[in-house]
């Protein structure tokens, strides 16, 4: 075996060893890397009861309510299998609207209502001009999930 072959083998073994170790570590930490739980996870009892966690899903159309005279927002988060009601007091991000994917961080209350301390809006990987979005929406394309120009204000005044 020439020295060059040996060095080649060494580099190969380093790569193999490190990627093997990292793959094992990532598999072991799968739960901790999980950025958010889905409503199905929560209803299956996979989410922690005693500490803060994140739950992610779509804001169900027609579920947004704001009790009069308060800043509290209530909406239903769904992953199209299970739902969870979220209550949040504070400023919602610009992209927040019904049909939008969001991630809320908070605790699950006794009454099954998730009390959020922070709400983040997720946006998807689709980028298109408004007229294309309108056309796709008319064709019932599943990529366009949001109804036409529903802002938070519109939803709140319903």
């Amino acid at each position: 075996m020439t020295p060059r072959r040996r060095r080649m083998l060494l580099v190969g073994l380093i790569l193999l060893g490190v990627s093997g170790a990292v793959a094992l570590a990532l598999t072991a930490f799968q739960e901790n890397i999980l950025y958010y739980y889905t409503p199905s996870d929560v209803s299956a009892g996979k989410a922690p009861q005693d500490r803060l966690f994140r739950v992610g899903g779509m804001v169900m159309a027609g579920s947004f309510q704001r009790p009069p005279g308060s800043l509290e927002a209530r909406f239903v988060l769904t992953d199209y299998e299970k739902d969870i009601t979220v209550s949040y007091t504070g400023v919602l991000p610009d992209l927040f609207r019904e049909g939008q994917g969001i991630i809320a961080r908070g605790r699950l209350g006794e009454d099954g209502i998730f009390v959020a301390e922070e709400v983040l809006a997720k946006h998807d990987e689709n980028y298109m001009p408004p007229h294309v979005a309108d056309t796709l929406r008319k064709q019932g394309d599943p990529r366009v999930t949001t109804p036409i120009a529903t802002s938070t204000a519109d939803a709140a005044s319903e």
Partner: protein
Amino acid sequence: MWLWFHKLSSPPYAYRTAGRLRPWFLWSAILLLAIGTFGGLVLAPEDYQQKDAFRIIYVHVPSASMSLMVYVAMAIAAAIGLIWRMKLAHAFAAACAPVGAWFTALTLVTGSIYGKPMWGTWWAWDPRLTSELILLFLYLGYLALRASFEDTQRADRASAILAIVGVVNVPIVKYSVVWWNSLHQGPSISKLGAPSIDPSMLWPLLVMMAGFVLYFAAVMCDRIRGEILRRERNASWLSEITVGT
């Protein structure tokens, strides 16, 4: 093929070639970046959901793809340098690192500026964001490790190992949005099937990406020349060309 490889590994030849290629790379980069910026900021329509705020992707996405691409180039060069004992490959790897670190920093900063209005937060410990931050630390660690050796050859070998070990982070950054639930959205371009970005918005992005690659090539021509000058400062071929001018 091998002749070309051997020729390029000779410092005087590489020094001259880099000097000759540099203006071509630089001017085509400037041209493409100008076209891409105009296309992205003026010609491309606004997004149906994110309005004008989405336009930051014309800087964010190319710098993110460069941060990964430069790392892979650096790791390959380091491996070649280690296996074939090729000094020029080590010089290439050393020249890559600061540029890659800046692309990574730019990715994180533009991503943060993008994240605040869209997601509602500057930073989240999300798999994609965290692994990109680790990438920045790998670049910085590589630079710090190099700086801690007086002897260039020892610096080359030690830092090459770090570059090779760190390459496992690259697929993690790339596929983090596919493997785990993430706040960051999934891939729009590099996936099976049609890109999920409208052609009118896609072309300036591709032009910008090509511009970033050419800019990197132009900067590398300069940096590799600097590395060669530093490493070969006592060589006779250098005194011949520098005394002559």
